């Protein structure tokens, strides 16, 4: 292969010296089957005068390309995730409230009236057969909100693992997003002690307890996690403590290094298994 052929696979192929936009794209998106002596090829193909110039261009191009790539990846960041999970919650909550209204209204007009978002969807699909235009129109709004909530959930499931890979692996993407939103961001979650994470979302119960009017809550939103759900009620306090401890570590790893640490999954699984075995004894 001659040098000009070889240059075809390089990041500087077909790029005018000084066109930093094009160089940046080539660094980010290019590929080659194997490495070659790019500095030599860059000189012989006329891209630069000497190797010192080559390294100057390369430094500029890699720093710019990498900065842009980092910003793009981080735009899918924790604050965006916070907005999407809250929007999802809002859609679900409002759909449920309106569905109650539809059930009550339909009960006054139809014999086959049912309840819930499912009934509202059915009403919307059936359409209006004459007198119930207002009722059916409201049911259609509920169906749209329910669809929107499902789309937002899919979005959260896609983006949470990018923002917090370890937390999402341990908690599932939706619960991970809820914890991040409740804490106000991944940074804030990473700085919270495990005991706080354990009761995030159970603030009412916690403050009732602090006023001396109730027992301490065992769990907040982590209640939906299978580590709690799959554990007998009398062992759920232990399970919640073990789970929140691992979630706290996962949030810190995600915030401070961003590396995926599969050993966390195994450690959590082992801890919960041991707790769940206790009920057999």
């Amino acid at each position, binding site marked *: 292969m001659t040098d000009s052929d070889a240059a075809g696979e390089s990041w500087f192929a077909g790029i005018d010296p000084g066109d930093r936009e094009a160089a940046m794209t080539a660094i980010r998106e290019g590929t080659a089957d194997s490495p070659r002596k*790019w500095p030599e090829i860059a000189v012989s193909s006329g891209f630069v005068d000497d190797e010192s110039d080559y390294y100057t261009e390369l430094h500029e191009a*890699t720093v710019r390309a990498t900065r842009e790539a980092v910003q793009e990846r*981080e735009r899918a960041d924790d604050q965006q995730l916070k907005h999407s999970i809250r929007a999802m919650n809002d859609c679900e909550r409002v759909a449920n409230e309106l569905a109650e209204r539809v059930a009550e209204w339909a009960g006054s007009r139809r014999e086959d009236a049912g309840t819930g978002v499912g009934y509202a969807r059915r009403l919307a699909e059936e359409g209006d057969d004459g007198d119930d235009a207002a009722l059916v129109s409201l049911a259609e709004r509920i169906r749209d909100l329910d669809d929107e909530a499902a789309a937002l959930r899919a979005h959260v499931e896609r983006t949470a693992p990018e923002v917090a890979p370890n937390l999402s692996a341990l908690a599932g993407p939706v619960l991970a997003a809820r914890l991040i939103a409740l804490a106000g961001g991944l940074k804030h979650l990473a700085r919270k002690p495990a005991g706080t994470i354990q009761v995030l979302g159970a603030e009412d119960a916690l403050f009732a307890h602090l006023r001396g009017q109730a027992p301490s809550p065992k769990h907040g939103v982590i209640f939906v996690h299978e580590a709690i759900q799959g554990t007998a009620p009398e062992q759920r306090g232990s399970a919640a403590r073990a789970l929140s401890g691992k979630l706290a570590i996962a949030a810190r790893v995600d915030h401070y290094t961003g590396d995926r640490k*599969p050993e966390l999954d195994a450690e959590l699984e082992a801890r919960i298994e041991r707790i769940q075995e206790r009920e057999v004894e």
Partner: protein
Amino acid sequence: MTLPEGVERRSFGGDEWLATRGDPVYGEPTDGHWRRWDPRRSKLGAMFEDGMETGLSGGETVLYLGAAAGTTVSHVADFAGPTYAVEFAARPTRDLLDAADPRENLFPLLKDARNPETYAHVVEPVNTLIQDVATRGQAKVALANRQFLRDDGRLLLAVKARSEDVTSDPSDVFDSVLETLTDGYEPLETRSLAPFHEDHLGVVARPR
């Protein structure tokens, strides 16, 4: 063992530490242009402290896989020649960029070390391949990147046992990683990086 040119033992607060010359990166103590290189924060630093024969003499071309926030690779770029730094996670790469800014010979790349074809159009054949990736399949990553290493080059590998398998005994994990590694490399020296890094093995190897 001799340290590469550009790496010296110097006194910081009364104790002797490894040090290189360059802009400070992570709040490390400095003495003039010299910056302390803490082996507890750097596997390569620990390999030097343990007296391993890294083959580094200063000025060589380096590919560094798993550069993270740039702690170690900034020291490497202080004494080496062109230094390519590959890191996959966006968050630490932001700090790596700060380390790269004042270092004209440091080239940061947000790439996955498991897919060398995504940076083979940028990285040239190198004298030294340094690898510190916390992922399962560390030997496979080293094999996939062997194409970047010149025939007389050296692989400096830090194997993290807990990234491969949390439940197995670390020495079993090291044996299995070394066995896979021999598909493309001949290990010359291995040494535990404790007490600086628990359950880590330092490996010097040459391509076969």
